[in-house]
């Protein structure tokens, strides 16, 4: 890649910043290929000299999550004064799911909100619906994981095998709804 191409990537990045967007350097570095180091240096220097932007609601929620060791998606919802049930109800409507899927949807949203669900498996329609409901780009917030702790003993409870408690027979309509919620939240087809 020539200097010119790296310069174009740099000006795209700087222009996006000037527009008030939040360009992500890693996306630009991916596009720079072998010249990623050069572009990284340019972006780093530019970010040292350019005045910092003012925080967005998502950034406030992220910080709160890091400092309080709480999931920022939860923090954002609380800041908005929304109950989880109302978010789930709104999601149910926005995603066009049947009322009988509500409990499974609530479980999936709880997992997402608490950082226990891989955001990579979440369907685009869910992100769009949540962006409308929570008035924020929540995809990054959902990627939150608990902050690293200083070395300390950690214990993990082995989950009890619940296979015997699971219904042995799943009705056809339940299976269909399970598949739909899984498809939306866990990339399972």
């Amino acid at each position, binding site marked *: 890649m020539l200097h010119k191409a*790296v*310069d174009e990537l740099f000006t795209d990045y700087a222009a996006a910043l000037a527009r008030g967007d939040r360009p992500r350097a890693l996306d630009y570095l991916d596009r720079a290929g072998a010249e990623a180091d050069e572009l990284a240096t340019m972006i*780093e*220097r530019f970010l040292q*000299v350019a*005045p*910092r*932007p003012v*925080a967005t609601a998502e950034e406030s929620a992220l910080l709160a999550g890091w400092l309080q060791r709480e999931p920022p998606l939860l923090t954002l919802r609380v800041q908005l004064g929304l109950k989880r049930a109302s978010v789930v109800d709104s999601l149910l409507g926005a995603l066009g799911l049947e009322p009988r899927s509500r409990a499974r949807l609530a479980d999936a949203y709880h997992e997402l909100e608490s950082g226990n669900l891989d955001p990579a498996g979440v369907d685009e329609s869910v992100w769009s619906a949540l962006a409308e409901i929570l008035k924020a780009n929540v995809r990054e917030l959902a990627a939150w994981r608990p902050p690293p702790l200083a070395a300390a003993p950690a214990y993990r409870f082995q989950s009890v095998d619940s296979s015997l408690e699971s219904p042995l027979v799943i009705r056809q309509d339940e299976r269909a709804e399970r598949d739909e919620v899984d498809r939306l939240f866990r990339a399972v087809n």
Partner: protein
Amino acid sequence: MHDARDAEDKRLLEAKEHTRLLENYVYLVQEWVAVRVRDRQSADEVVQRVFLRLASELAAGKSYRCPYRVVVWSVVKYTASGYEWTVKEGVTLPESWDAPGPDEYEAWEAEHDLGTWIADLPDRDREVLDLLHREGLSPLQVADRLGISRNAVDQAAHRGHLKVAEKIRAA
């Protein structure tokens, strides 16, 4: 160039509005760390460590002799140094450390001022970059302020950013 944001940081520090102060640095820290660490998962960990460190210092009442952005940058640099590309052991920010003092900071500032970098641009390009970055106006607001079209703003910004790229490369 940084005066307005530095003054706001100083006000927030004095008012002990630490959360407000730190949240304004979330994007900047994420990006500084990202370009150094490159790996998204490690970068997330470094960013969280940076803010936990900054917050604990503020809570302990630590004071600084330089603008807060210099403090943030210093903590990012130290914290990321253990993670650049591969995790290395034994590189940590000492519990007791000092951000740059006034003399040292002056030299740093001379190299880190967008105003200096754009000073010799043609008037229109300089004005546009100044309003976009220093005053935080949107391109449409800049167009209104200067009485030019949005397209002219974009073109001036593009020329200006290319010039900045040249200066960074030459530095």
